[in-house]
């Protein structure tokens, strides 16, 4: 897919530095130039200007701008962020009841560590995004739900929230003239992958077991305490200040037509420099591997797993795929959370598949039978692949089983195993 522009713009001011798309950064732009705990450093890079702009705009216009920018949820599903905001905004009128805003920082998708880098290196940025979105929909209470294992991120967010309160950007005195106040609190998870799913997260926030709710109703109508609630991923919020500051057109000039903006890819495995890389949406896997220092010891690629455990296996013939929501869809794969796990020729993809299926078995909450029994069944069958006489028949059987689970399970976890399984069957089977 052709990128419309290679022009890099930074949050502190449009910077007409032309460079390749792998250098275009929005979220991680200033990460290495500021002290993450310093609010003044954040202000110096232009922080809070976007929120000031937002406050001077009509809330509806803020939502429209996000919608026009075409921002899509970075948690994995790629749902248009503007629409989600619009639904939450419209569910009840601005002054008729409590609305909530929640930042989903429960990053637990195997292979994904992009939100962690935002929270550790530039925690004020995504909180500013939350504040913009809260103003847009009229939410006066916010929560950041983070997994308890991210101890450093927790410290950084605590400091950032303290900063916002002590400089008067959060709390009662936020904007008296507009009668707008916002409180944000931090809440910890306790080791449940499923709580990264928005409705399960809300259950957990309410102090309950992490069991999924049945959709619909969606959080936009009945979220936290059954009130309208807007839930976004950390990375999604982190894009909002840029959009408000520099406008939807500027944002749309980055990335691809249907997946505008940048994406942080968490690259791990057999590359020379594993780590987080923010590039324009639509970069090819081949280019991304180059950005990450190339294949380790020049051993060629066998397969890459894109998007996490609920992600897709692709093979070395598909390395020119455009890494964006629609580019991946074209090859029946998903972009997911942006995890990119690289396996070289010496690795056994069957093992990798078995580990992924074991993960789903462990994380299935047990509320609905198709998922509870099905994920256990799939994990068992995966153990048998290596010794099976007819591997192809066994894999077909597993795909059929996973399809059945996906159709009948309550929540997205049950719909997940089919993603790695069918892509394994289509793209990697011939390599085993």
């Amino acid at each position: 897919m052709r990128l419309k522009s290679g022009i890099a713009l930074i949050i502190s001011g449009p910077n007409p530095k032309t460079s390749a798309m792998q250098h275009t950064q929005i979220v991680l732009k200033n990460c290495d130039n500021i002290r993450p705990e310093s609010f003044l450093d954040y202000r110096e890079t232009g922080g809070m200007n976007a929120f000031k702009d937002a406050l001077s705009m009509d809330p509806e216009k803020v939502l429209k701008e996000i919608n026009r920018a075409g921002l899509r949820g970075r948690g994995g599903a790629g749902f248009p962020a503007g629409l989600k905001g619009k639904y939450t905004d419209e569910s009840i009128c601005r002054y008729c009841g409590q609305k909530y805003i929640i930042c989903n920082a429960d990053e637990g998708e195997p292979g994904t560590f992009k939100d962690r880098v935002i929270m550790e290196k530039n925690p004020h940025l995504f909180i500013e995004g939350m504040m913009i979105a809260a103003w847009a929909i009229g939410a006066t209470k916010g929560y950041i739900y983070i997994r308890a294992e991210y101890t450093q991120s927790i410290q950084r967010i605590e400091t950032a929230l303290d900063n916002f309160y002590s400089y008067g950007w959060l709390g009662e005195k936020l904007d008296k003239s507009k009668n707008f106040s916002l409180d944000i609190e931090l809440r910890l998870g306790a080791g449940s992958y499923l709580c990264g799913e928005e409705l399960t997260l809300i259950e957990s926030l309410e102090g309950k077991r992490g069991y999924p709710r049945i959709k619909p109703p969606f959080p936009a109508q009945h979220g936290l305490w059954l009130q309208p609630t807007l839930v976004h991923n950390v990375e999604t919020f982190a894009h909002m200040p840029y959009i408000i500051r520099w406008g939807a057109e500027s944002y749309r000039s980055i990335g691809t037509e249907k997946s505008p903006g940048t994406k942080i890819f968490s690259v791990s495995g057999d590359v020379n420099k594993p780590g987080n890389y923010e590039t324009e949406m639509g970069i090819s896997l081949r280019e991304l591997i180059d950005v990450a220092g190339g294949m380790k010891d020049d051993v060629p690629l066998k397969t890459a797993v894109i998007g996490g455990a609920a992600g897709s296996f692709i093979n070395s013939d598909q390395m020119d795929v455009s890494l964006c929501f629609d580019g991946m869809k074209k090859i029946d794969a998903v972009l997911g959370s942006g995890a990119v796990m690289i396996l070289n020729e010496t690795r056994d993809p069957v093992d990798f598949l078995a580990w992924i299926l074991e993960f789903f078995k462990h994380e299935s909450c047990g509320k609905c039978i198709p998922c509870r029994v099905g994920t256990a069944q799939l994990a068992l069958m995966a153990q048998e692949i290596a010794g099976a006489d007819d591997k192809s028949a066994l894999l077909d059987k597993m795909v059929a089983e996973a399809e059945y689970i996906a159709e009948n399970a309550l929540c997205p976890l049950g719909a997940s195993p089919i993603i790695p399984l069918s892509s394994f069957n289509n793209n990697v089977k011939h390599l085993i």
Partner: protein
Amino acid sequence: MTSREIISKYKADKDQLLMILHEVQNNHPQSYISEEDIILIAKHLNTTKAAVYGVVEYYSMFSSKPRGKHIIRVCKSPMCRMLGSADVLTFLQQELGVPVNHTSSDGMFTLELSECLGHCDKAPVMMIDEYLYSRLSEAKIRHSLDYFRTKP
């Protein structure tokens, strides 16, 4: 600080439950939530003992049974396994003399497995309490254990 003192710091709202459980558990020398604590918490939040117990049992980071002073969590995500977490686990079992989900005889460490800890670029990794150790080697593991053994 006693559990009662910790619990009374929190507002009596049900959404505080996980936060209370974390602090009570971290405060306990055996890193768990005792039945007495569960009863205290339930009373504070005006809910049932069963509701609190259900939450403790659901989340993998909470324990209703006594554990060691420090909790070791070895990452078992696909990427860590591909890059050698099985060796890490074998070595830890040897060093501690216990299998997974057991506590060393000196009561210092409980060995547990964890899903992805989010440091796949530095695999294999483990956590001891709130500290993360990455790119693990035998020397590094031994060093980290010694640190916690001598930590006051």
